[in-house]
């Protein structure tokens, strides 16, 4: 059992008071390790909430630097951070909100070559990337490494998310076999995105990570939650593991990772 300092008891009192979290749950959070892939719209609120919650070790991966167009939704980055590495900008805010947290920064793109190495050793992974090939890559790597993760995506006024516990629940490929053709779906930079929905979706992902670490409640597994912020309609679609899933089915055809073609418009590769 972690020995809490008086300051920690105050800092985490609202968690400790929760019957389902309590002292034990907070100790699990402090011992927990979460990797956030992408320090953008989704990664920013996830990073702040997990740091605030006292998740002991948080890794954050991104190769980009902060641009002024990010600031409308990527709330870890401030105007003065323009030009700085996103992972460093995010890490500074995480450390400022909670010095208990160890932040590991990875200023790089994830790729088939490095992702398994990156996620190994983490308890939970959060997908906060902005392109389909990388979302599939994260799914495939997490299934292969048996690391639970939260998928998330936002565009315009819409968001969608699902949690995957490899071997137990439907993976992303059980429902979506392969990335849409390049340019079939516009990226955020083309289509635009309402800033606040990054927070709406990112905080759902953060809550899933905290639930997983503390063993609380039921994860958003075998389901896809989507919302339309224009009407505030939320929909939860039931999903099931597919026997013939090319990744987690009984006779998988995907047995190693590969980098897929990026959307043409996404000239710059994103982590």
């Amino acid at each position, binding site marked *: *059992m972690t020995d*809490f300092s008086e300051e920690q*008891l*105050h800092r985490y*009192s609202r968690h*400790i*008071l929760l*019957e389902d979290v*309590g*002292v*034990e749950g907070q100790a699990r959070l402090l011992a927990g390790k979460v990797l956030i892939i992408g320090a953008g719209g989704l990664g920013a609120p996830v990073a702040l909430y997990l740091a605030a919650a006292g998740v002991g070790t948080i890794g954050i991966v991104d190769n980009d630097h902060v641009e002024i167009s990010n600031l409308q939704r990527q709330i870890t980055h401030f105007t003065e951070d323009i030009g700085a590495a996103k992972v460093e900008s995010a890490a500074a805010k995480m450390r400022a909100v909670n010095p208990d947290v160890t932040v590991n920064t990875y200023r790089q793109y994830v790729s088939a070559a490095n992702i398994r190495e990156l996620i190994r050793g983490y308890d939970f992974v959060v997908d906060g990337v902005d392109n389909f090939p990388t979302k599939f890559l994260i799914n495939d790597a997490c299934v292969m490494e048996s690391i639970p993760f939260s998928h998330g995506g936002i565009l315009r006024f819409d968001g969608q998310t699902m949690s995957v516990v490899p071997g137990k629940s439907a993976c992303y490929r059980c429902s979506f076999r392969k990335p849409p053709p390049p340019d079939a779906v516009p990226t955020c930079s083309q289509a635009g995105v309402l800033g606040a929905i990054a927070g709406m979706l990112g905080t759902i992902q953060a809550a899933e990570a905290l639930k997983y670490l503390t063993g609380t409640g039921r994860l958003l597994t075998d389901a896809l939650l989507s919302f339309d912020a224009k009407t505030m309609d939320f929909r939860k679609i039931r999903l099931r593991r597919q026997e013939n899933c090319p990744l987690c089915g009984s006779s998988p055809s995907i047995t190693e990772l590969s980098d897929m073609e990026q959307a043409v418009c996404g000239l710059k590769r994103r982590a």
Partner: protein
Amino acid sequence: MEITRQVRKAIIDHAEGELPNEACGYLAERDGVVVGYYPLTNLDKAADHYSMDPQEQFTAIREMRAMGLKLAGVYHSHPATPARPSAEDIRLAHDPEISYLIISLADAEPAVKSFGIRGGVVSPQEITVVEEGESMGVKADAVKNCRGIGCPMNLVHAKVGLAALRSGQVLEVILDDGPPVINVPASAGREGHRVLGQTRLADGAWSVLLEKC
């Protein structure tokens, strides 16, 4: 009758606080040991007799039930006479099942005596003073002193104390009067822990025994 040191001290304090008038109240027991007391208003405000406030009596009984305690007896003080039932005390003693405890402040050292009264016949009862832990047949495995700590941090400390214990072990939490002693045992109970009892301490704080679920 067995009574905890804390309750015995507390009712003497109550009696002294009401001087020159008589003080009165209820005693509550668990497993045959008086572990709690409920000071009641003496409506007569007199030095030689008392009447309890029926509304307060009702509330006290309800609180006892809620905490799994039973009415053990009635106590009252004799500011200037010895600790034995007066003719009026005997006449008004309607319940043969409970004890009638009298605190005499006639001498420098207060005297506390207990009696059973059945059909006008008074029989003295021996009083055994027990320590808090033994009073409930349990010795607390750990203590959290939350004097001066408000809500909700007192509950945080209590939960930290409970987390360090195994199921079935007992934590004694010292809580301030008012919201702390109302909220903390209730919250611990909601989380499945057993509230074994609570006693008023001499300084006005409360000792609450929680058995970890």
